[in-house]
């Protein structure tokens, strides 16, 4: 079986498409997560592939589905957190051969194919549809939702996995070379100029603060709230390994990475896998967990004019994303019980929620909003999952939390200031991401 990247036609990227044709006809039911670790320990039992299988089996069991009934698998084949297998470094064949390998020995270690999963999960005897939603879980969710809606699969696993290796983030490869290609030197992003990953976001945040008269220290309540929510997320990295509340003082005294982005504004790279089981609304009624219906998915594909997106470009794109989200779901901002937009980097979460016009906010309002009650107990919860800041870099905590909140399975994170009926989650970047609207009811 050859697995292809999802075609562009599966993403809803423009305004004016109307209500999603499959609104309320696709549901998330099962959830599974592997344990988290900071980095791979080199053992066969703890590879990224092993984590993937663990998470998938958890999701299947959670939904109460016979594995033989599963006919679809959507995943992201790219699993790097920024760590790449060093060129020339020997691949441990004992690890490779511990599993049923594919033609690529790094499959299951530093990348992941659908073929590798199917070779190593013999219980999946009936998978006929596989597809890649490349980028992160937000991509895979959109692709799986669309595939179930179109009838290409009726019971579909959705998977995102991350590997992390020894070494500092993004410091190997081209960063360590004495020479770089001319095109790379002029390209956006990490070039010979030495920009850390969060640099672009830091500059947009700096421009935001100048325009609206805000400051970096106004982020402290958001950061403390995110860590608090993360510590209430037993599947997350900080809850499992470093259960330390982040105080405003901790945050404000942290070292800079790319000022005005400091250490905690950057999410911590980890190893983890997450999986969901999607099915039709009809089949979901008979499954073990309460269905969470998908009202819409929408994607942004913003293009900047030059090297870095300006604040104007970011705000234009996020506002358009908000309109697409609501249009396809047939709802308004007032219908949102909560938001779980992406936060890794912390300094762009405000762009996402201002674009949503969450709780009526306009551009420039979010940091003032953070100074009020944004807790899970209040009427205006912000990022109840805690996001990547609260639980490490997975880019899926916000999706898991949205499903769990609506299912009534969020445990200590359960929203008490609002009844969780409709939520939105997604990301990653304000200029390019994929977003999903979740609901307790199909209409």
């Amino acid at each position, binding site marked *: 079986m050859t697995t292809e990247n999802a075609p562009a036609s599966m993403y809803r990227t423009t305004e004016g498409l109307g209500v999603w044709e499959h609104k309320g006809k696709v549901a998330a039911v099962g959830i599974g997560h592997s344990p988290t670790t900071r980095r791979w320990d080199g053992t066969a039992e703890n590879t990224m592939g092993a984590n993937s299988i663990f998470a998938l089996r958890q999701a299947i069991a959670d939904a109460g589905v016979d594995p033989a009934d599963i006919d679809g698998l959507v995943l992201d084949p790219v699993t790097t957190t920024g760590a790449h297998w060093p060129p020339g470094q020997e691949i441990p064949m004992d690890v490779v051969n511990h599993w049923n390998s594919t033609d690529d020995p790094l499959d299951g270690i530093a990348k992941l194919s659908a073929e590798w999963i199917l070779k190593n999960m013999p219980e999946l005897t009936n998978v006929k549809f596989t597809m890649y939603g490349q980028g992160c879980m937000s991509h895979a969710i959109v692709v799986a939702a669309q595939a179930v809606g179109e009838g290409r699969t009726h019971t579909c696993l959705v998977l995102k996995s991350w590997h992390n290796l020894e070494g500092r983030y993004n410091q190997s490869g081209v960063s360590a070379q004495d020479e770089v290609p001319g*095109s790379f030197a002029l390209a956006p992003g990490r070039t010979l100029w030495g920009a850390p990953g969060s*640099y672009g976001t830091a500059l947009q945040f700096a421009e935001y603060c100048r325009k609206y008269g805000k400051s970096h220290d106004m982020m402290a309540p958001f950061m403390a709230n995110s860590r608090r929510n993360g510590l209430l997320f037993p599947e997350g990295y900080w809850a499992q390994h470093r259960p330390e509340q982040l105080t405003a003082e901790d945050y404000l005294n942290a070292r800079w990475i790319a000022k005005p982005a400091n250490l905690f504004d950057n999410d911590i790279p980890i190893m983890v896998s997450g999986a969901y089981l999607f099915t039709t609304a009809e089949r979901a009624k008979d499954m073990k967990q309460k269905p969470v219906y998908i009202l819409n998915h929408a994607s942004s594909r913003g293009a900047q004019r030059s090297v870095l997106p300006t604040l104007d470009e970011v705000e234009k794109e996020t506002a358009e994303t908000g309109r697409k989200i609501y249009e396809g779901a047939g709802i308004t901002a007032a219908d949102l019980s909560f938001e779980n937009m992406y936060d890794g980097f912390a300094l762009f979460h405000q762009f996402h929620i201002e674009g949503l016009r969450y709780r009526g906010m306009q551009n420039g309002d979010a940091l003032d909003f953070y100074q009020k009650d944004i807790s899970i107990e209040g009427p205006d919860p912000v990022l109840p999952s805690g996001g990547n800041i609260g639980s490490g870099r997975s880019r899926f905590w916000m999706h898991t939390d949205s499903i769990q909140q609506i299912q009534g399975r969020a445990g200590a994170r359960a929203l008490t200031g609002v009844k969780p009926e409709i939520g939105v989650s997604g990301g990653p970047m304000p200029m390019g991401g994929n977003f999903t609207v979740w609901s307790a009811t199909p209409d």
Partner: protein
Amino acid sequence: MVKQGIVPDELTKPFWDAANEGRLEMQNCSACNRLQNPPADTCSQCKSADNLEWKALSGKGKIYNYGVVYDCPVRLLQEDQPFNLAVITLDEDPGIQMYSHLPGTPVDVVPVGASVEVIFEKSANGQMIPEWQVVS
């Protein structure tokens, strides 16, 4: 700060050749009368490659925005941390941006909006790179 050396490729060779001769040139679509940076195979507006040319610029611009890099992924620059990393916009078209370490400007004392002019610095392999200095 000595930056990584540069190996010009087919797309960017005119840019780097001009830099070696002390000129700032940028890709321009003559049909759209529109500059673009980074360079690309086609015009980002009309999507055609037919009218792309390299145009000499004045080398004058403004500081649009900046950050201070304290944790740099590029090995060759790590001993110079912390350093300014600014975005410059061109006077010919404020929509076009270039990076700069702002040589001569103290760290984190960056006059956003100030006028700058291009200079050229030698990289690790001798290729000249456009840089920007505040106009005093």
